């Protein structure tokens, strides 16, 4: 496939992620911060997000599986997940976290379990999308092309 085609595919794909709400403006901010002195900045930050999230999702699963759920602890984990998803622009994950925290506050176990399910779903979705995006970028770079900047006109 020609570089130009992959570039177009990347642009369309990225735009669709914004349209569908997977990513928000913060992701663009990350891309804008990337430069020659730190060409892997976005991948590095997103990888940290992946590592962090998987740890947190495990801890949440364990915490919500206890006979006496410690809602403060659960809320602490969700707060962290909300923070990191917000920092990279993973909007849908962040939004579930907001709802999740509300359920923690009122100590609603069913609500929490539902949110846990949802946040896992959203996390794996956005992880998948971002990995696809990075793969497209790699293909472009490997073919000697440059990664197009997305103009979103927010």
């Amino acid at each position: 496939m020609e570089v130009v085609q992959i570039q177009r595919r990347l642009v369309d794909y990225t735009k669709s992620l914004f349209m569908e709400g997977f990513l928000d403006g913060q992701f663009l901010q990350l891309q804008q911060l990337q430069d020659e002195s730190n060409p892997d900045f976005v991948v590095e930050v997103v990888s940290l997000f992946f590592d962090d999230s998987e740890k947190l999702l495990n801890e949440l699963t364990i915490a919500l599986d206890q006979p006496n759920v410690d809602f403060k602890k659960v809320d602490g984990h969700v707060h962290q997940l909300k923070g990191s998803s917000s920092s990279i622009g993973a909007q849908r994950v962040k939004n579930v976290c907001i709802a999740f925290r509300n359920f923690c506050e009122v100590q609603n176990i069913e609500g929490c379990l539902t949110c846990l399910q949802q946040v896992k779903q959203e996390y794996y979705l956005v992880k998948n999308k971002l990995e696809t995006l990075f793969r497209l970028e790699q293909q472009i770079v490997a073919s000697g092309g440059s990664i197009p900047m997305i103009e979103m006109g927010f």
Partner: protein
Amino acid sequence: MAMAAEAKFHVLAVDDTLIDRKLIEKLLKTSSYQVTAVDSGTKALEFLGLNNKERNSKADASVDVEVNMIITDYCMPGMTGYDLLREIKGCSSLKDIPVVIMSSDNIPSRINRCLEDGAEEFFLKPVQLSDVNKLRPHLMRSRSKPNINKRKAAEEIVSPDRTRTRFNQAEERSSSPN
């Protein structure tokens, strides 16, 4: 605008989350600041205090690790950003360093309390480049005060193990925060 080869402003960033530390560091470096990032209020205070002990024992410690600003997350385990703010403002040789607080939660009472207790700015996370641009006036203002920190610190040196004071370099902060 800048006079002959001014050193970069040195910002101390404090955040317990690795992602946010990486982010704030990048934002600050992109804005041409020198950055030191630590993961707790305790480490921040150590950094601010330890510098001075080290410089004290060196013959001519011309390496100036003066800190021009502290930017800290609010929610941290142990010492919160607010606790750190209070420590800094309560320490005579550190209190003139501008402090900025960041938080992911938009809680007006929290914001007001921080600002009332001496924080220059309060940024909501995720912090943007436009937020970092707001820092420069605070830094310029501190720098334009003619060696106020340095003079004050010199006056306060009374401990017997200090045999000399140096007036033309960034002075040691007083021995320990209150």
